[in-house]
Protein backbone atom coordinates (compact mmCIF):
# COMPACT_ATOMS: atom_id res chain seq x y z
CA UNK A 1 0.00 0.00 0.00
CA UNK A 2 2.70 2.53 1.08
CA UNK A 3 6.36 1.66 0.71
CA UNK A 4 9.27 3.94 1.59
CA UNK A 5 12.45 2.18 0.54
CA UNK A 6 15.71 3.85 1.57
CA UNK A 7 14.31 7.29 0.76
CA UNK A 8 16.44 10.41 0.95
CA UNK A 9 15.14 13.89 0.21
CA UNK A 10 17.47 16.84 -0.16
CA UNK A 11 15.96 20.21 -1.00
CA UNK A 12 17.90 21.90 -3.78
CA UNK A 13 17.60 25.46 -2.48
CA UNK A 14 19.58 25.15 0.75
CA UNK A 15 20.88 21.60 0.57
CA UNK A 16 18.73 20.69 3.58
CA UNK A 17 18.41 16.95 4.15
CA UNK A 18 14.72 16.44 4.97
CA UNK A 19 14.69 12.63 4.91
CA UNK A 20 17.65 10.30 5.18
CA UNK A 21 17.63 6.62 4.20
CA UNK A 22 14.07 6.25 5.41
CA UNK A 23 12.40 2.86 5.05
CA UNK A 24 8.99 1.69 6.27
CA UNK A 25 5.87 0.03 4.94
CA UNK A 26 2.22 0.69 5.75
CA UNK A 27 -0.18 -2.17 5.03
CA UNK A 28 -3.81 -1.87 3.94
CA UNK A 29 -6.15 -1.01 6.85
CA UNK A 30 -3.41 0.20 9.22
CA UNK A 31 -3.60 3.32 11.40
CA UNK A 32 -0.20 5.00 11.63
CA UNK A 33 0.89 8.10 13.51
CA UNK A 34 3.90 10.05 12.23
CA UNK A 35 5.42 11.93 15.15
CA UNK A 36 8.51 14.04 15.70
CA UNK A 37 9.65 17.60 16.33
CA UNK A 38 9.06 20.32 13.76
CA UNK A 39 11.48 19.70 10.90
CA UNK A 40 11.75 15.99 11.70
CA UNK A 41 10.43 15.07 8.25
CA UNK A 42 6.69 14.47 8.81
CA UNK A 43 5.59 17.09 6.27
CA UNK A 44 8.11 15.84 3.72
CA UNK A 45 6.57 12.37 3.99
CA UNK A 46 3.05 13.77 3.59
CA UNK A 47 4.13 15.87 0.57
CA UNK A 48 5.74 12.82 -0.97
CA UNK A 49 2.62 10.72 -0.46
CA UNK A 50 0.70 13.42 -2.41
CA UNK A 51 3.49 13.63 -5.03
CA UNK A 52 4.10 17.28 -4.22
CA UNK A 53 7.72 16.29 -3.73
CA UNK A 54 9.76 13.48 -5.25
CA UNK A 55 12.50 11.50 -3.53
CA UNK A 56 16.10 12.49 -4.27
CA UNK A 57 17.00 8.82 -3.98
CA UNK A 58 15.22 5.63 -2.98
CA UNK A 59 11.71 4.53 -3.88
CA UNK A 60 8.27 5.65 -2.71
CA UNK A 61 5.30 3.54 -3.78
CA UNK A 62 1.75 4.68 -2.93
CA UNK A 63 -1.22 2.57 -4.03
CA UNK A 64 1.00 1.09 -6.74
CA UNK A 65 2.17 4.48 -8.07
CA UNK A 66 5.93 5.04 -8.10
CA UNK A 67 6.25 8.65 -6.91
CA UNK A 68 9.76 8.99 -8.32
CA UNK A 69 8.72 8.26 -11.89
CA UNK A 70 5.07 9.31 -11.87
CA UNK A 71 4.27 11.54 -14.85
CA UNK A 72 2.55 14.89 -14.34
CA UNK A 73 -0.56 13.51 -16.04
CA UNK A 74 -0.77 10.55 -13.61
CA UNK A 75 -0.70 12.71 -10.46
CA UNK A 76 -4.50 13.36 -10.46
CA UNK A 77 -5.04 9.59 -10.70
CA UNK A 78 -2.86 9.03 -7.60
CA UNK A 79 -4.57 11.81 -5.65
CA UNK A 80 -8.01 10.43 -6.45
CA UNK A 81 -7.06 7.25 -4.60
CA UNK A 82 -6.19 9.33 -1.51
CA UNK A 83 -8.14 11.50 0.90
CA UNK A 84 -6.39 14.47 2.53
CA UNK A 85 -7.22 16.41 5.69
CA UNK A 86 -5.23 19.52 6.61
CA UNK A 87 -4.71 21.36 9.87
CA UNK A 88 -6.31 24.52 8.40
CA UNK A 89 -9.31 22.61 6.95
CA UNK A 90 -8.97 24.26 3.49
CA UNK A 91 -12.68 24.62 2.83
CA UNK A 92 -14.13 26.89 0.16
CA UNK A 93 -15.70 29.76 2.12
CA UNK A 94 -18.30 30.70 -0.49
CA UNK A 95 -19.75 27.18 -0.77
CA UNK A 96 -22.06 25.34 1.57
CA UNK A 97 -21.01 22.24 3.49
CA UNK A 98 -22.83 20.12 0.91
CA UNK A 99 -21.09 21.87 -2.00
CA UNK A 100 -17.68 21.60 -0.38
CA UNK A 101 -18.07 17.82 -0.25
CA UNK A 102 -19.79 17.52 -3.64
CA UNK A 103 -16.96 19.56 -5.17
CA UNK A 104 -14.48 16.71 -4.57
CA UNK A 105 -16.82 14.35 -6.45
CA UNK A 106 -17.33 16.77 -9.35
CA UNK A 107 -13.57 16.89 -9.73
CA UNK A 108 -13.42 13.16 -10.42
CA UNK A 109 -16.40 13.36 -12.79
CA UNK A 110 -18.88 11.49 -10.57
CA UNK A 111 -22.46 11.41 -11.92
CA UNK A 112 -24.94 13.81 -10.26
CA UNK A 113 -27.07 10.91 -8.97
CA UNK A 114 -24.08 9.40 -7.22
CA UNK A 115 -23.11 12.78 -5.75
CA UNK A 116 -26.66 13.28 -4.38
CA UNK A 117 -26.52 9.86 -2.73
CA UNK A 118 -22.94 9.91 -1.46
CA UNK A 119 -22.68 13.43 0.03
CA UNK A 120 -25.40 12.96 2.70
CA UNK A 121 -23.86 9.56 3.43
CA UNK A 122 -20.41 10.96 4.26
CA UNK A 123 -21.91 13.93 6.09
CA UNK A 124 -23.76 11.44 8.32
CA UNK A 125 -20.51 9.59 8.88
CA UNK A 126 -19.01 12.76 10.39
CA UNK A 127 -22.29 13.66 12.17
CA UNK A 128 -22.93 16.77 10.08
CA UNK A 129 -25.94 15.80 7.96
CA UNK A 130 -27.97 18.55 9.65
CA UNK A 131 -25.45 21.25 8.64
CA UNK A 132 -25.46 20.54 4.90
CA UNK A 133 -26.75 24.00 4.00
CA UNK A 134 -24.47 25.93 6.35
CA UNK A 135 -21.39 27.84 5.20
CA UNK A 136 -17.94 27.16 6.73
CA UNK A 137 -17.98 30.52 8.55
CA UNK A 138 -21.12 29.37 10.40
CA UNK A 139 -19.35 26.29 11.81
CA UNK A 140 -17.00 25.71 14.74
CA UNK A 141 -13.39 24.61 14.09
CA UNK A 142 -14.25 21.01 14.92
CA UNK A 143 -17.21 21.03 12.57
CA UNK A 144 -15.09 22.54 9.79
CA UNK A 145 -12.54 19.78 10.24
CA UNK A 146 -15.33 17.21 10.04
CA UNK A 147 -16.47 18.75 6.74
CA UNK A 148 -12.91 18.49 5.49
CA UNK A 149 -12.92 14.80 6.51
CA UNK A 150 -16.22 14.23 4.73
CA UNK A 151 -14.71 15.78 1.61
CA UNK A 152 -11.66 13.54 1.93
CA UNK A 153 -13.90 10.46 2.22
CA UNK A 154 -16.34 11.38 -0.55
CA UNK A 155 -14.50 9.42 -3.25
CA UNK A 156 -13.93 6.31 -1.07
CA UNK A 157 -10.14 6.68 -0.84
CA UNK A 158 -8.10 3.67 0.19
CA UNK A 159 -5.73 5.88 2.19
CA UNK A 160 -6.64 8.89 4.32
CA UNK A 161 -3.75 11.28 4.95
CA UNK A 162 -4.23 13.65 7.87
CA UNK A 163 -1.70 16.44 8.43
CA UNK A 164 -2.11 17.71 12.00
CA UNK A 165 -5.91 17.47 11.80
CA UNK A 166 -6.33 18.40 15.46
CA UNK A 167 -3.70 21.14 15.47
CA UNK A 168 -6.27 23.95 15.61
CA UNK A 169 -8.77 22.24 17.92
CA UNK A 170 -9.31 21.94 21.65
CA UNK A 171 -9.15 18.54 23.37
CA UNK A 172 -12.89 17.81 23.19
CA UNK A 173 -13.09 18.58 19.45
CA UNK A 174 -9.85 16.67 18.90
CA UNK A 175 -11.37 13.59 20.57
CA UNK A 176 -14.40 13.84 18.29
CA UNK A 177 -12.14 13.98 15.23
CA UNK A 178 -10.09 11.01 16.44
CA UNK A 179 -13.26 9.00 17.09
CA UNK A 180 -14.33 9.60 13.50
CA UNK A 181 -10.88 8.73 12.14
CA UNK A 182 -10.95 5.53 14.16
CA UNK A 183 -14.41 4.71 12.79
CA UNK A 184 -13.16 5.29 9.24
CA UNK A 185 -10.16 3.08 9.88
CA UNK A 186 -12.42 0.33 11.28
CA UNK A 187 -14.20 0.33 7.92
CA UNK A 188 -10.95 -0.58 6.18
CA UNK A 189 -9.44 2.76 5.17
CA UNK A 190 -5.72 3.13 5.86
CA UNK A 191 -5.04 6.24 7.96
CA UNK A 192 -1.68 8.04 8.07
CA UNK A 193 -1.70 10.94 10.52
CA UNK A 194 1.10 13.41 11.25
CA UNK A 195 0.68 14.96 14.69
CA UNK A 196 2.22 16.68 17.69
CA UNK A 197 -0.69 15.75 19.96
CA UNK A 198 0.90 13.61 22.65
CA UNK A 199 -2.32 12.78 24.52
CA UNK A 200 -4.05 11.60 21.37
CA UNK A 201 -1.17 9.35 20.32
CA UNK A 202 -0.93 7.86 23.79
CA UNK A 203 -4.64 7.23 24.13
CA UNK A 204 -5.17 5.66 20.67
CA UNK A 205 -2.57 2.90 21.07
CA UNK A 206 -1.88 2.62 17.33
CA UNK A 207 1.32 2.16 15.34
CA UNK A 208 3.70 5.10 15.85
CA UNK A 209 6.58 6.03 13.52
CA UNK A 210 8.90 8.50 15.23
CA UNK A 211 11.19 10.69 13.15
CA UNK A 212 14.15 12.81 14.09
CA UNK A 213 16.10 14.97 11.63
CA UNK A 214 14.70 13.03 8.71
CA UNK A 215 15.59 9.59 10.06
CA UNK A 216 13.33 6.90 11.50
CA UNK A 217 14.18 6.50 15.19
CA UNK A 218 11.29 4.32 16.38
CA UNK A 219 8.53 2.24 14.78
CA UNK A 220 6.24 0.65 17.40
CA UNK A 221 3.13 -1.44 16.87
CA UNK A 222 1.13 0.05 19.77
CA UNK A 223 3.36 2.92 20.64
CA UNK A 224 3.22 6.15 22.54
CA UNK A 225 4.43 9.66 21.97
CA UNK A 226 8.17 9.76 22.64
CA UNK A 227 10.14 12.22 20.59
CA UNK A 228 12.97 12.98 22.99
CA UNK A 229 14.13 16.44 23.97
Amino acid at each position, binding site marked *: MIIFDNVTKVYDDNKTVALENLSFTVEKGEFVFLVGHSGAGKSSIIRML*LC*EERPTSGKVIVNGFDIGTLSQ*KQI*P*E*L*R*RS*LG*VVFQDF*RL*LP*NRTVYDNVA*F*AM*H*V*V*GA*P*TKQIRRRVPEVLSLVDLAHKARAYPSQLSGGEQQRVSMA*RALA*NNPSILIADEPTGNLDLKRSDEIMAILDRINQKGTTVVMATHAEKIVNSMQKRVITLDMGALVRDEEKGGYEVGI
Partner: protein
Amino acid sequence: MAFRGLKYYCSEAFKNIWYNKLMAITSIITVMSCLLIFGFFLVVQLNLNDITKQLEGQCEIQAFMPQEYNDEQAKQVCDKISVLPNVKSAILETRQQAYDNYKDTLGTAANVMENINPEEFLPASCKIRPNDISQLNELEAQVSAIEGVEEVINRRDTVNGVISVNSIIRNGCIIFAVLLALIAVFIISNTIKLDVHARQREIHIMKYVGATDWFIRWPFIIEGIIVGFLGAVVAILITLLISSLLLNALDSFGNIFQFRSSSDTMPLVSVVLLLFGVVIGALGSLVAVRKHLQV
Protein backbone atom coordinates in the same frame (compact mmCIF):
# COMPACT_ATOMS: atom_id res chain seq x y z
CA MET B 1 -15.47 16.92 -22.54
CA ALA B 2 -18.72 15.13 -21.75
CA PHE B 3 -22.01 17.07 -21.55
CA ARG B 4 -22.11 16.61 -17.76
CA GLY B 5 -18.62 18.12 -17.55
CA LEU B 6 -19.59 21.00 -19.83
CA LYS B 7 -22.66 21.73 -17.69
CA TYR B 8 -20.50 21.81 -14.55
CA TYR B 9 -17.81 23.99 -16.16
CA CYS B 10 -20.43 26.43 -17.43
CA SER B 11 -22.15 26.70 -14.06
CA GLU B 12 -18.73 27.24 -12.40
CA ALA B 13 -17.85 29.90 -14.98
CA PHE B 14 -21.13 31.76 -14.39
CA LYS B 15 -20.64 31.52 -10.61
CA ASN B 16 -17.09 32.91 -10.95
CA ILE B 17 -18.37 35.82 -13.01
CA TRP B 18 -21.07 36.48 -10.43
CA TYR B 19 -18.62 36.36 -7.50
CA ASN B 20 -16.15 38.60 -9.35
CA LYS B 21 -18.63 40.96 -10.98
CA LEU B 22 -16.33 43.97 -10.94
CA MET B 23 -13.46 42.14 -12.61
CA ALA B 24 -15.82 40.67 -15.18
CA ILE B 25 -17.23 44.11 -16.00
CA THR B 26 -13.68 45.49 -16.38
CA SER B 27 -12.83 42.69 -18.81
CA ILE B 28 -16.07 43.14 -20.75
CA ILE B 29 -15.39 46.88 -21.13
CA THR B 30 -11.83 46.14 -22.28
CA VAL B 31 -12.96 43.66 -24.92
CA MET B 32 -15.77 45.98 -25.93
CA SER B 33 -13.42 48.97 -26.40
CA CYS B 34 -11.00 46.98 -28.55
CA LEU B 35 -13.75 45.40 -30.63
CA LEU B 36 -15.56 48.70 -31.05
CA ILE B 37 -12.53 50.29 -32.73
CA PHE B 38 -12.01 47.16 -34.78
CA GLY B 39 -15.69 47.01 -35.75
CA PHE B 40 -15.65 50.66 -36.82
CA PHE B 41 -12.62 50.03 -39.05
CA LEU B 42 -14.32 46.98 -40.49
CA VAL B 43 -17.44 48.97 -41.45
CA VAL B 44 -15.26 51.68 -43.05
CA GLN B 45 -13.24 49.02 -44.87
CA LEU B 46 -16.34 47.29 -46.26
CA ASN B 47 -17.73 50.61 -47.51
CA LEU B 48 -14.41 51.62 -49.03
CA ASN B 49 -14.25 48.32 -50.89
CA ASP B 50 -17.68 49.06 -52.31
CA ILE B 51 -16.77 52.63 -53.25
CA THR B 52 -13.65 51.39 -55.01
CA LYS B 53 -15.72 48.90 -56.98
CA GLN B 54 -18.28 51.59 -57.81
CA LEU B 55 -15.50 53.93 -58.97
CA GLU B 56 -13.87 51.19 -61.00
CA GLY B 57 -17.25 50.55 -62.62
CA GLN B 58 -17.66 54.23 -63.34
CA CYS B 59 -14.17 54.59 -64.70
CA GLU B 60 -14.53 55.84 -68.23
CA ILE B 61 -12.78 58.15 -70.59
CA GLN B 62 -14.64 60.74 -72.57
CA ALA B 63 -13.50 61.71 -76.08
CA PHE B 64 -14.70 65.16 -77.13
CA MET B 65 -15.09 66.08 -80.75
CA PRO B 66 -14.89 69.53 -82.32
CA GLN B 67 -17.89 71.76 -81.56
CA GLU B 68 -18.90 71.89 -85.19
CA TYR B 69 -19.25 68.09 -85.56
CA ASN B 70 -22.86 67.12 -86.20
CA ASP B 71 -24.50 63.90 -84.99
CA GLU B 72 -23.53 61.93 -88.11
CA GLN B 73 -19.85 62.94 -87.92
CA ALA B 74 -19.75 62.25 -84.17
CA LYS B 75 -21.30 58.82 -84.70
CA GLN B 76 -18.61 57.91 -87.23
CA VAL B 77 -15.86 58.83 -84.73
CA CYS B 78 -17.60 56.88 -81.96
CA ASP B 79 -17.92 53.83 -84.23
CA LYS B 80 -14.17 53.94 -84.88
CA ILE B 81 -13.53 54.05 -81.15
CA SER B 82 -15.89 51.15 -80.44
CA VAL B 83 -13.81 48.72 -82.50
CA LEU B 84 -10.59 49.45 -80.62
CA PRO B 85 -9.30 46.61 -78.44
CA ASN B 86 -10.04 46.97 -74.69
CA VAL B 87 -13.24 48.94 -75.33
CA LYS B 88 -16.16 47.53 -73.43
CA SER B 89 -18.63 50.13 -74.64
CA ALA B 90 -18.56 53.40 -76.55
CA ILE B 91 -21.69 55.50 -76.22
CA LEU B 92 -22.29 58.63 -78.20
CA GLU B 93 -23.50 61.76 -76.44
CA THR B 94 -24.78 64.20 -79.06
CA ARG B 95 -24.65 67.97 -78.62
CA GLN B 96 -28.40 67.94 -77.87
CA GLN B 97 -28.00 65.15 -75.25
CA ALA B 98 -25.06 66.98 -73.64
CA TYR B 99 -27.18 70.14 -73.50
CA ASP B 100 -30.15 68.26 -72.01
CA ASN B 101 -28.02 66.43 -69.44
CA TYR B 102 -26.44 69.67 -68.29
CA LYS B 103 -29.86 71.31 -68.11
CA ASP B 104 -31.09 68.47 -65.92
CA THR B 105 -28.28 69.04 -63.44
CA LEU B 106 -29.42 72.64 -62.96
CA GLY B 107 -32.85 71.56 -61.74
CA THR B 108 -35.07 74.57 -61.01
CA ALA B 109 -32.43 76.96 -62.44
CA ALA B 110 -32.69 75.32 -65.86
CA ASN B 111 -34.47 78.34 -67.35
CA VAL B 112 -31.10 80.16 -67.62
CA MET B 113 -30.38 77.80 -70.53
CA GLU B 114 -33.42 78.83 -72.55
CA ASN B 115 -31.63 81.27 -74.85
CA ILE B 116 -28.61 79.01 -75.53
CA ASN B 117 -28.34 77.06 -78.76
CA PRO B 118 -27.56 73.37 -78.03
CA GLU B 119 -25.32 73.17 -81.10
CA GLU B 120 -23.09 75.90 -79.74
CA PHE B 121 -23.04 74.93 -76.07
CA LEU B 122 -21.22 71.60 -75.59
CA PRO B 123 -19.49 69.44 -78.21
CA ALA B 124 -20.57 65.86 -78.95
CA SER B 125 -18.56 63.22 -77.13
CA CYS B 126 -18.06 59.49 -76.87
CA LYS B 127 -18.15 57.87 -73.42
CA ILE B 128 -15.80 54.88 -73.39
CA ARG B 129 -15.68 52.12 -70.77
CA PRO B 130 -12.56 49.97 -70.84
CA ASN B 131 -12.42 46.22 -70.30
CA ASP B 132 -9.23 46.53 -68.30
CA ILE B 133 -8.64 49.65 -66.16
CA SER B 134 -4.91 48.97 -65.92
CA GLN B 135 -4.62 49.51 -69.72
CA LEU B 136 -6.30 52.92 -69.51
CA ASN B 137 -3.23 54.93 -70.59
CA GLU B 138 -2.79 52.89 -73.79
CA LEU B 139 -6.49 53.20 -74.63
CA GLU B 140 -6.37 56.94 -74.02
CA ALA B 141 -3.45 57.24 -76.50
CA GLN B 142 -5.25 55.15 -79.12
CA VAL B 143 -8.43 57.24 -78.81
CA SER B 144 -6.48 60.51 -79.01
CA ALA B 145 -4.91 59.33 -82.27
CA ILE B 146 -8.28 58.92 -84.01
CA GLU B 147 -9.14 61.70 -86.40
CA GLY B 148 -11.98 63.84 -85.11
CA VAL B 149 -11.05 63.46 -81.44
CA GLU B 150 -10.14 66.84 -80.06
CA GLU B 151 -9.67 66.12 -76.36
CA VAL B 152 -9.73 63.09 -74.08
CA ILE B 153 -10.45 63.32 -70.33
CA ASN B 154 -10.50 60.59 -67.68
CA ARG B 155 -11.20 60.18 -63.95
CA ARG B 156 -8.24 57.95 -63.34
CA ASP B 157 -6.64 60.10 -60.64
CA THR B 158 -9.77 59.90 -58.49
CA VAL B 159 -9.95 56.13 -58.90
CA ASN B 160 -6.26 55.71 -58.11
CA GLY B 161 -6.66 57.91 -55.03
CA VAL B 162 -9.52 55.83 -53.66
CA ILE B 163 -7.72 52.57 -54.46
CA SER B 164 -4.59 53.69 -52.59
CA VAL B 165 -6.61 55.01 -49.61
CA ASN B 166 -8.45 51.70 -49.58
CA SER B 167 -5.25 49.67 -49.51
CA ILE B 168 -3.77 51.89 -46.76
CA ILE B 169 -6.90 51.42 -44.63
CA ARG B 170 -6.97 47.68 -45.36
CA ASN B 171 -3.34 47.24 -44.25
CA GLY B 172 -3.90 49.54 -41.30
CA CYS B 173 -6.93 47.51 -40.35
CA ILE B 174 -4.91 44.28 -40.27
CA ILE B 175 -2.10 45.82 -38.19
CA PHE B 176 -4.65 47.44 -35.92
CA ALA B 177 -6.56 44.19 -35.47
CA VAL B 178 -3.40 42.32 -34.44
CA LEU B 179 -2.39 45.10 -32.03
CA LEU B 180 -5.87 45.32 -30.51
CA ALA B 181 -6.00 41.53 -30.14
CA LEU B 182 -2.65 41.54 -28.30
CA ILE B 183 -3.73 44.39 -26.03
CA ALA B 184 -7.06 42.69 -25.29
CA VAL B 185 -5.40 39.32 -24.58
CA PHE B 186 -2.91 41.06 -22.27
CA ILE B 187 -5.59 42.97 -20.34
CA ILE B 188 -7.99 40.02 -20.13
CA SER B 189 -5.24 37.67 -19.03
CA ASN B 190 -4.22 40.15 -16.32
CA THR B 191 -7.79 40.58 -15.14
CA ILE B 192 -8.33 36.83 -15.05
CA LYS B 193 -4.92 36.43 -13.38
CA LEU B 194 -6.26 38.50 -10.47
CA ASP B 195 -9.25 36.18 -10.38
CA VAL B 196 -7.02 33.09 -10.53
CA HIS B 197 -4.77 34.54 -7.85
CA ALA B 198 -7.76 35.23 -5.60
CA ARG B 199 -8.80 31.62 -6.13
CA GLN B 200 -5.35 30.08 -5.70
CA ARG B 201 -6.57 28.30 -2.58
CA GLU B 202 -9.46 26.77 -4.47
CA ILE B 203 -7.11 25.62 -7.24
CA HIS B 204 -4.83 24.02 -4.64
CA ILE B 205 -7.76 22.16 -3.10
CA MET B 206 -8.85 21.03 -6.54
CA LYS B 207 -5.37 19.68 -7.22
CA TYR B 208 -5.28 17.85 -3.86
CA VAL B 209 -8.56 16.08 -4.56
CA GLY B 210 -7.27 14.92 -7.93
CA ALA B 211 -8.45 17.51 -10.45
CA THR B 212 -6.71 17.41 -13.81
CA ASP B 213 -5.22 20.61 -15.20
CA TRP B 214 -7.96 20.77 -17.85
CA PHE B 215 -10.66 20.38 -15.21
CA ILE B 216 -9.25 23.52 -13.58
CA ARG B 217 -8.70 25.37 -16.87
CA TRP B 218 -12.12 24.85 -18.46
CA PRO B 219 -14.20 27.06 -16.13
CA PHE B 220 -11.65 29.87 -16.58
CA ILE B 221 -11.64 29.41 -20.36
CA ILE B 222 -15.45 29.41 -20.46
CA GLU B 223 -15.39 32.50 -18.23
CA GLY B 224 -13.07 34.17 -20.77
CA ILE B 225 -15.32 33.10 -23.63
CA ILE B 226 -18.40 34.53 -21.88
CA VAL B 227 -16.57 37.79 -21.14
CA GLY B 228 -15.35 37.98 -24.77
CA PHE B 229 -18.82 37.17 -26.08
CA LEU B 230 -20.54 39.81 -23.91
CA GLY B 231 -17.90 42.40 -24.83
CA ALA B 232 -18.48 41.59 -28.51
CA VAL B 233 -22.28 41.86 -28.17
CA VAL B 234 -21.99 45.34 -26.60
CA ALA B 235 -19.45 46.36 -29.28
CA ILE B 236 -21.79 45.11 -32.03
CA LEU B 237 -24.73 47.10 -30.64
CA ILE B 238 -22.67 50.30 -30.40
CA THR B 239 -21.16 49.76 -33.89
CA LEU B 240 -24.66 49.24 -35.27
CA LEU B 241 -25.88 52.44 -33.63
CA ILE B 242 -22.90 54.57 -34.71
CA SER B 243 -22.79 53.23 -38.28
CA SER B 244 -26.55 53.81 -38.70
CA LEU B 245 -26.23 57.41 -37.49
CA LEU B 246 -23.17 57.98 -39.68
CA LEU B 247 -24.78 56.51 -42.79
CA ASN B 248 -27.90 58.63 -42.27
CA ALA B 249 -25.70 61.71 -41.98
CA LEU B 250 -23.76 60.75 -45.15
CA ASP B 251 -26.99 60.05 -47.04
CA SER B 252 -28.16 63.59 -46.33
CA PHE B 253 -25.13 64.89 -48.31
CA GLY B 254 -26.47 63.29 -51.49
CA ASN B 255 -25.90 60.08 -53.37
CA ILE B 256 -22.44 60.50 -54.85
CA PHE B 257 -21.61 56.99 -53.63
CA GLN B 258 -23.82 54.14 -52.65
CA PHE B 259 -22.95 53.26 -49.01
CA ARG B 260 -23.74 49.87 -47.57
CA SER B 261 -26.74 49.84 -45.26
CA SER B 262 -26.20 48.63 -41.68
CA SER B 263 -28.34 45.58 -42.33
CA ASP B 264 -25.94 44.74 -45.13
CA THR B 265 -22.66 45.14 -43.20
CA MET B 266 -23.67 44.11 -39.69
CA PRO B 267 -24.11 40.33 -40.17
CA LEU B 268 -20.51 40.00 -41.34
CA VAL B 269 -19.19 42.53 -38.79
CA SER B 270 -21.13 40.75 -35.99
CA VAL B 271 -19.72 37.33 -36.87
CA VAL B 272 -16.17 38.70 -37.07
CA LEU B 273 -16.48 40.60 -33.76
CA LEU B 274 -18.07 37.64 -31.96
CA LEU B 275 -15.34 35.28 -33.17
CA PHE B 276 -12.68 37.82 -32.27
CA GLY B 277 -14.17 38.36 -28.80
CA VAL B 278 -14.52 34.67 -28.03
CA VAL B 279 -10.99 33.84 -29.23
CA ILE B 280 -9.28 36.65 -27.30
CA GLY B 281 -11.34 35.81 -24.20
CA ALA B 282 -10.31 32.17 -24.32
CA LEU B 283 -6.67 33.02 -25.08
CA GLY B 284 -6.53 35.54 -22.25
CA SER B 285 -7.78 32.90 -19.79
CA LEU B 286 -5.35 30.27 -21.03
CA VAL B 287 -2.41 32.64 -20.58
CA ALA B 288 -3.66 33.60 -17.09
CA VAL B 289 -4.14 30.05 -15.75
CA ARG B 290 -0.95 28.60 -17.25
CA LYS B 291 1.38 29.57 -14.38
CA HIS B 292 -0.97 28.73 -11.54
CA LEU B 293 -1.35 25.00 -12.10
CA GLN B 294 1.95 23.83 -10.63
CA VAL B 295 0.93 22.26 -7.31
